[in-house]
């Protein structure tokens, strides 16, 4: 019975892998596929492994996936289940969206592939090679494709590798679209620099098993902002002048106080004068002391104070105008995002 299955499978493969003569010469997998078609599974497995060996010239991604798929099928036919699952596992990690063609491979191969898929936690991250975020409503679409249902954490890392923005954390069944606005929590576009988009797959116990990292190059395109105007210190006038100093007010007051005391004599009064006049004398003297102290302080120049106030008001208005202009220029800032090639790594 098994022999019959092998024969049928080989016949199907013979049809599936048939290539024009010219194409066979260019296909690096041609020899291995020929052995596969001739049901020389041992020979085919050996050839596929040599093509996939680390020291062999690296195959293009599409050929590598085909080689892994045929290796898995070959090992299935060789009844080497573990080797088949390993080959399928490598294929699923490289391309979680990969699905075998059911017309090309028999059910026992596709069934084993499905089994392998369910056991592998891998995710593909797909985003445009280039995108631009201009307005507040613009988003960068990031689509996650999971090999099987598992928890995925998608995070943007800053140029220093520190987590910057968590975009998703939770299960992904088949695919999920996540949108990123390219802004920080304050709503400002991120600065120009090399960032990283990292998707981490976790197993059922929550342990990280695999990461996909995509380098992001962010370029902030903005108009230069205007420099804030300098305070008009050079045009400002001195608001005070040096203390007048001198004892003139004090002398005036002393003279007046003495005049109060002496006035009855000057008037030629022959009687005792009012003693309460000393109150006036004391008041004049106290005012003189106050005046003396006042003149030892800087004297305000009201017209200069008013001039400087007007100057500062004009400066504040100019400052406000520059702030508004700069706010408009910053609001017109755009963010250009370029995505690099993804790198897949198993977490040890």
């Amino acid at each position, binding site marked *: 019975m098994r022999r019959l299955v092998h024969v049928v499978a080989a016949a199907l493969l013979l049809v599936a892998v048939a290539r024009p003569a010219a194409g066979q010469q260019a296909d690096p997998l041609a020899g291995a596929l020929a052995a596969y078609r001739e049901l020389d599974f041992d020979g085919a497995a050996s050839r596929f492994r040599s093509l996939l060996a680390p020291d062999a010239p690296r195959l293009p991604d599409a050929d590598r996936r085909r080689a892994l798929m045929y290796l898995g099928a070959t090992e299935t036919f060789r009844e080497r289940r573990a080797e088949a699952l390993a080959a399928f596992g490598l294929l699923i990690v490289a391309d979680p969206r990969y699905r075998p063609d059911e017309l090309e491979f028999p059910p026992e191969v596709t069934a084993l592939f499905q089994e392998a898929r369910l056991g592998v936690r891998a995710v593909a991250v797909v985003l445009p090679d280039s995108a631009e975020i201009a307005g507040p409503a613009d988003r960068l679409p990031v689509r996650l494709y999971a090999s099987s249902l598992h928890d995925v954490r998608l995070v943007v890392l800053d140029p220093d590798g520190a987590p910057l923005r968590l975009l998703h954390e939770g299960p992904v069944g088949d695919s999920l679209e996540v949108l990123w606005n390219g802004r920080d929590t304050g709503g400002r576009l991120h600065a120009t620099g090399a960032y990283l988009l990292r998707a981490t797959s976790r197993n059922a116990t929550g342990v990280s098993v695999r990461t996909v990292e995509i380098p992001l190059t962010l370029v902030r395109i903005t108009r230069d902002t205007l420099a804030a105007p300098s305070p008009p210190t050079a045009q400002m006038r001195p608001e005070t002048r040096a203390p*007048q100093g001198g004892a*003139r*007010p004090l002398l*005036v*007051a002393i*003279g*007046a106080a003495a*005049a*109060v005391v002496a*006035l*009855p004599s*000057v*008037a*030629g*009064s*022959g*009687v005792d*004068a*009012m003693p*309460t*006049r000393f*109150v*006036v*004398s004391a*008041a*004049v003297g106290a*005012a*003189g002391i*106050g*005046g003396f102290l*006042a*003149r030892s302080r800087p*004297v305000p120049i009201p017209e200069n104070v008013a001039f400087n106030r007007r100057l500062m008001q004009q400066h504040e208005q100019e400052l406000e105008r520059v702030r508004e202009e700069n706010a408009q220029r910053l609001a017109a800032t755009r963010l250009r995002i370029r995505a690099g090639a993804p790198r897949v790594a198993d977490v040890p």
Partner: protein
Amino acid sequence: MRRLVLALVAWLAFASPGAAQARTRLTVGVDAQSARLVREQAPDIALNGIVAAMQAGVAIGRVGLEIGYAQGRLSPDADAANAEELVDGEAMLAVRALPWLVLRGGPHLRAWVTPAGTQRWMRVEGRAEVSGEVIPGRVRAHAEVWSALSTDVNLGVGASGARGGRVGLTMAIANSPLLLRLMYTADRAELADGRADVLEGIGLGLVWRRQ
């Protein structure tokens, strides 16, 4: 002589550098004075009381006209029956000769209404007032002296002269056209027979000015 005085006044008023921009200044003041009159005779008599006074003035440039009126009742201690009524009025032509010097001249009438009759004095006085800032822009000290150029009284003995003075300060009230004024005044009017009236007063008042 009169023409010479008038010419001097006219020159001071209109020939000064600032005459073209001469501004009109108005002043009105009220005072309450604690006054004391001592009649120097044998024996001396002292009377005390409160005198209310008011003044008004208008000045154009350096020249101004000022009038004053005061009235009060003074009486000997514990003898209200012999109280005397003071009625005092004056009109002065004022000339600001220098920023710190004002010269005044004019008639000064004073009447003492007593139970025995009314004693009327009439003088023509010449006055000089100097003033200086004590606190810049706020407080000025003033000192004024006067002397009677001629004196007359309705008593048979006649008058021999009069002189006096006033010293004090004015304080500008912030953000207001008002000044607070504190003055001490002493005046002596002499009769030909050697008797004299010495009138003193300490006055506190307000002055409103506009310029």
